[in-house]
């Protein structure tokens, strides 16, 4: 750690001399570190990202992200390094390719199929209900009278 700090100091000092000003251009974008960390699983936690975990391991992993970015790696390369060591398991979201694509597609496909099924069945049921209802024939005057009479009778 101390050696690393010394190296960092030397590098910065070198840049300072070369540019005649404190080097800010080489500083790693902390937002980028967070962004990468938030996509990686903290290996010692339960369902937590490297960016969110306060654990020592996550801290060290953030340091490695920082170091690799400073060395010129792209965020993709940094993630690829961790995948190389831990497998796809390290990624909090499975990549949208190959077999893992199923994880992304199936829920939406299922929802779509379900909605279509519901729509089809509802139409069919309402049509059936209409078809099987007894024909509403005209009410003759005798029946009309009876309904009126029975409606006005007090309940027994």
């Amino acid at each position, binding site marked *: *750690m101390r050696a*690393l700090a010394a190296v960092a100091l030397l590098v910065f000092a070198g840049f300072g001399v070369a540019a005649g000003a404190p080097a800010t251009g080489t500083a790693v974008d902390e937002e980028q570190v967070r962004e990468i960390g938030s996509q990686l699983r903290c*290996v*010692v936690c339960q369902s937590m990202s490297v960016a969110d975990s306060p654990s*020592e*391991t996550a801290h*060290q*992993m953030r*340091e*490695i992200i920082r170091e690799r970015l400073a060395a010129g790696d792209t965020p993709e390369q940094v993630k690829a390094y*961790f*995948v*190389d*060591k*831990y*497998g796809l*398991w390290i990624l909090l979201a499975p990549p949208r390719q190959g077999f893992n694509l199923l994880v992304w597609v199936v829920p939406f496909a299922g929802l779509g199929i379900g909605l279509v099924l519901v729509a089809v*069945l509802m139409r*069919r*049921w309402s049509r059936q209900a209409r078809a099987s209802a007894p024909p509403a024939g005209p009410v003759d005057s005798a029946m009309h009278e009876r309904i009126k009479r029975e409606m006005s009778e007090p309940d027994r």
Partner: protein
Amino acid sequence: MSARGLRWIIPLAVVPVLILLGYAFKLNPREVPSPLIGKPATKFSLKTFDGNQISLEGLRGKVVLVNFWASWCYPACYEEAPALERGWQAFKDRGLVVIGINIQDKDEPARKFLTEFGHSFPNAPDPAGRVSVDYGVYGVPETFFIDRAGNVRYKHVGAVTDAIFKEQAERLLGERS
């Protein structure tokens, strides 16, 4: 194809769910497969607690057992410690090296651990966690068996027993590189 005719299909919908659950419940969620098996072991060079430099590269041609441990890792690290020392004593003359890498730990309790078990094989701290991430370590103890050609051949999660040590050591020592 009436709705009534298809009704028997509905209970069948639970079948794939049951199959999935049956499969998943048999898996150990804490066991994560390592993608490193069969691949060249990442080189490392660390300073041991005794002040010596130890590097994996210098051990090419030997079977190397790399054990990640911590003094707070109770009981697993304490269970395996005697087995590691016994295995090292039994196989060191046949070309096997045991390296202990102390991770996520403090200097004092780590040294106390080593004294307590009288470990005579090299042990080094990995203060920045570089080596543990290089080996995809996610907990302690984890042990990697590296063959004579420098490839990771087996990873053991949890305490190493005499039987596991012997089995892997014999297997890898029996190979000619």
